[in-house]
């Protein structure tokens, strides 16, 4: 058992071995693609080779005639759904668009858009059958950038999208315009001594989860279906698949597999309804898995964007006005995270005069999905670069600049009520005091950059059960898929409350029929909200234990104390001996039956998260290649339940953010075809491209949460691209305004600066 730790916690804050560890390191853990059933068929998806085309006809006769092919489905096999919004996890989805993204109806809207699906006796036969499906397309001009999509007279993707601003009712590719306002920016800029205005572009990037999407659908003759898949939210898969298939939600059971990464990209459904549809048609279980190319062409990604950011500050460093304009690629259907981009872009700072305009723009690219603090990294790339530039103008250390303008408890948010207790400034102080920031960086072409990030976090609904077994061990049953080690944290919370050893707690992630509704593992909510439910469920166990002891000792429940897993009377005396859980557990049958603790939460108020990062780089000025020398992140975790997994989230998000900054990008050719459909040319950083990322956990408890937990999953990705840009500036003197800052882009900027310098020197001679 863990020795008693600081802060009055016994288990929380320690680093036990995760319960799923042995299965994972021995290869026994079951991921989505590991499932197999008798009589199972294999499904494959035919995808559009065109980014924008009308589908004139689909002929399947030849493909159906191939021996081994059992069924082929197209959009005609799915109900046509209304143009209506429904909530799903972090986002609301349009049902019509949802269905059209599963199988194209009428038009193909991106390279890789599903057109048809085949079930066959082997994946190879299914693959060959795809080649025999004849689709007649009328190719339409692709619209690939927000600039092109927003131009007057642009080719229209979705005729149902209407622009009703200015009293007009016109076709448009702009799905939404959002505006936030505070004070008077024109007046604000008048007070400024320095004004910086820059335009930024960020490339579309993928979440990069290593495990491709997968699903096994089994439809029974009694009208019930089961789906096995890797997902961030089994209840979301159930709800959305039911809608797409036109069957009632209660007739679907979703069994979540272990998941090989999601980062937001495994909230949407892709293969799940198709596997059930093919199973309906064939009467067999149907398994579908994507290739890497399919993952990159047709799932995820997050938006590329164009952002203009203008900020003004007084000489003494006070930011007095900010104006931002953001346009995000939504992909083929509306729903980019531009709203959260707009709400996060200035969130860390207390600026009296603000105007933010944001546009959600459809383009012939895959429908974007959530990606770790969706929309915030794009936005921070812009604002955190401009803040750095202002700090330089004012001659103020960039961390001090942020401390001077940073938000704290009581600061009014641009959108929403004033902040409750938050830990932004604490993360800045932690970076300031870190061995990294305290060290001196020397050498040519080397530079240090800092930046900060904000993310809302969400609460939402969770259910939990805590079962006390007759040997005194405990099982925790939850509906939250475990992506980042949350299962261990849930077990630790139960162990803490019940005073039992962490190894006497077994956490289980249940299917949708075995636990109450639980929202997605997303929005950094799992440890916060499901952890809250587990805490309450464990407290429910304690209440019941007290009742049992009271009955046995002929006292009232409030005369019993429960401490460190032991029940004893509040007033000692008589011959009553305290009882441990281990002692009472075998006697449950004689004291009233089993004990099951239950709780549900619908957490409305959450603790927003902040992180600040510091990055050192060295740039090769002859090739534009950036080497990251050192990286540190400080993040407010509220209360770190399992510090190793909190650090893992901090390091993981930072690694992704640095990759986003360095080399990751969707590369479409002139015809709108994605060229880098593999991980060779979609360049995520390898372990050789990143240093060991240093971490500093800050703990400013979230008010209202019983343990003070703050979500930790996302905010770590927000600041790194900007910190990298700032470091590059301090290394070689060029301000990068386009992501990724890949060698060709950086070399071009360096050579341009060098040429300008030479021209200036020549003029001076």
């Amino acid at each position: 058992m863990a020795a008693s730790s600081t802060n009055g916690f016994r288990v929380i804050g320690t680093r036990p071995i995760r319960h799923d560890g042995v299965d994972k390191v021995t290869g026994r853990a079951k991921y989505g693609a590991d499932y197999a059933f008798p009589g199972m068929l294999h499904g494959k998806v035919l995808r559009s080779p065109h980014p924008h085309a009308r589908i004139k006809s689909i002929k399947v006769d030849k493909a159906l005639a191939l021996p081994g092919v059992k069924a082929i489905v197209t959009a005609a096999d799915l109900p046509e759904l209304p143009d209506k919004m429904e909530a799903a996890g972090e986002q609301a989805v349009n049902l019509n668009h949802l269905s059209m993204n599963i199988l194209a109806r009428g038009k193909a809207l991106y390279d890789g858009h599903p057109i048809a699906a085949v079930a066959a006796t082997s994946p190879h036969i299914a693959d060959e059958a795809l080649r025999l499906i004849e689709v007649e397309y009328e190719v339409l001009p692709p619209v690939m950038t927000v600039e092109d999509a927003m131009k007057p007279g642009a080719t229209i993707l979705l005729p149902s999208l209407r622009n009703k601003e200015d009293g007009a009712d016109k076709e448009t590719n702009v799905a939404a315009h959002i505006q936030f306002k505070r004070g008077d920016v024109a007046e604000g800029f008048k007070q400024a001594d320095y004004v910086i205005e820059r335009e930024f572009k960020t490339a579309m990037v993928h979440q990069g989860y290593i495990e491709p999407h997968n699903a096994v659908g089994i439809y029974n003759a009694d009208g019930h279906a089961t789906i096995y898949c890797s997902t961030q939210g089994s209840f979301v898969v159930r709800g959305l698949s039911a809608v797409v298939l036109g069957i009632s939600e209660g007739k679907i059971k979703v069994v979540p597999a272990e998941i090989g990464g999601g980062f937001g990209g495994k909230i949407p459904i892709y293969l799940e309804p198709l596997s059930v549809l093919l199973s309906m048609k064939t009467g067999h279980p149907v398994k579908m898995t994507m290739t890497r190319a399919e993952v990159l062409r047709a799932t995820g990604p997050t938006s590329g964007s164009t952002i203009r950011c203008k900020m003004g500050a007084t000489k003494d460093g006070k930011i007095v006005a900010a104006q931002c304009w953001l346009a995000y690629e939504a992909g083929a259907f509306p729903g980019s995270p531009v709203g959260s981009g707009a709400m996060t872009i200035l969130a860390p700072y207390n600026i009296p005069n603000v105007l933010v305009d944001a546009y959600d723009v459809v383009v012939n690219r895959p429908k974007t999905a959530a990606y770790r603090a969706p929309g915030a990294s794009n936005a921070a790339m812009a604002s955190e670069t401009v803040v750095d530039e202002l700090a330089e103008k004012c001659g103020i250390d960039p961390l001090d600049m942020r401390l001077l303008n940073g938000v704290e408890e009581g600061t009014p948010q641009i959108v929403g009520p004033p902040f409750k207790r938050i830990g932004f400034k604490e993360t800045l102080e932690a970076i300031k005091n870190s061995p990294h920031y305290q060290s001196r960086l020397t050498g040519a072409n080397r530079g240090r950059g800092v930046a900060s990030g904000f993310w809302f976090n969400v609460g939402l609904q969770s259910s939990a059960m805590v079962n006390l077994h007759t040997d005194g061990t405990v099982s925790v049953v939850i509906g939250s898929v475990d992506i980042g080690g949350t299962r261990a944290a849930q077990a630790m919370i139960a162990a803490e409350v019940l005073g039992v050893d962490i190894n006497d707690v077994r956490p289980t992630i249940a299917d949708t029929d075995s636990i109450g509704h639980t929202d997605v593992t997303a929005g950094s909510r799992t440890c916060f909200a499901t952890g809250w439910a587990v805490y309450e469920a464990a407290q429910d166990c304690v209440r019941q234990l007290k009742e049992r002891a009271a009955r046995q000792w002929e006292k009232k429940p409030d005369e019993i104390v429960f401490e460190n897993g032991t029940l004893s009377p509040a007033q000692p005396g008589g011959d009553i001996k305290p009882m441990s859980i281990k002692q009472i557990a075998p006697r449950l049958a004689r004291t009233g039956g089993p004990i099951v603790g239950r709780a549900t939460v619908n957490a409305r108020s959450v603790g927003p998260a902040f992180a600040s990062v510091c990055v050192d780089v060295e740039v090769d000025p002859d090739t534009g290649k950036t080497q990251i020398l050192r990286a540190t992140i400080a993040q407010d975790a509220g209360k770190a339940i399992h510090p190793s997994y909190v650090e893992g989230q901090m390091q993981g998000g930072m690694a992704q953010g640095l990759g986003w900054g360095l080399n990751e990008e969707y590369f479409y050719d002139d015809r709108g075809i994605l060229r880098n459909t593999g991980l060779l040319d979609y360049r995520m950083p390898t372990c050789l491209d990143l240093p060991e990322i240093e971490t500093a956990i800050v703990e400013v408890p979230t008010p209202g949460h019983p343990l003070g937990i703050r979500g930790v999953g996302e905010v770590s990705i927000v600041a790194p691209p900007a910190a990298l840009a700032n470091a590059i500036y301090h290394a070689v003197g060029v301000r990068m305004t386009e992501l990724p800052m890949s060698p060709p882009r950086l070399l071009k900027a360096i050579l341009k600066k060098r040429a300008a310098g030479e021209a200036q020197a020549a003029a001076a001679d």
Partner: protein
Amino acid sequence: MHAINYEAPKSLDEAVKLLAAHGEKARPLSGGTDLLIQLRAGTRRPEFVVDIKEIPELARISFSLQHGLKLGAAVPCIAIHENGDMRKYYPGLTEAAHLIGSLQIQSRATVGGNLCNGSPAADTTPALVALGAQARLAGPKGERIVPVDGFCLAPGRTVLQPGELLVELQIPAPERHASDAYLRFIPRNEMDIAVVGVGAALSLDVSDDRVVEARIGLGAVGPTPIFAAEASKSLIGKTLDAAAIERAAKLAVAAATPIDDMRGTAEFRRHVVGVLTRRTLAIAAERARAANQR
């Protein structure tokens, strides 16, 4: 993926017969690190795959200072790196072979396969071009020897005729003060593909640091690997000073015919050809000066 037939002949004769019998529908399989990916992606659809790894003659490295190097077409890259003669006499080629993929990939991938795949970005081809390597081919009409410079015709296309396969690569033994080097530019630090590759081989007269022989090979900056003839010639007979290196680098840039693609712009590639030519020549020269073979 479509159904394929697989054979693993034990002799060169048998392999040639199998390949000849199936003509364009057959494809030799060496390490498979390109072919298997092409099969799965459907970019090549051979019906017949002839595995050449079990032919003893193709799986050998033989080297002597008298006869030079004979490198079998099916020798995995890792065996090159593990070979003391290769590291000593052909450090540039060895480095190129050691840059391909991961250690696992190097245990399968071969220099022969790298050449026959015909990618302009192949890492070992510019190193072979710099060393003046020759390719020994066997086919239904007998054997022939062709230079590696000119072996590739276009992306994915080589001089190999239907039914023909690469048997070995032949490289002359290095002169007394000769060596080679290969550098590539990749955006990451590993697990990547050349955006620019430059191989250089130099033979020096150390009495006055004069260049006796020079060859520069370029990769990923044209539809095929390129022998930078003018750049190479510019060095011969010259003292290897900064000016000579600069001149050669400029001529190498002029020899490149790159395009814009997802790996880099043409403008970027031209600049980096100059940078890597300077760096590669400097390394090759240092090695050549230190070498004292024969």
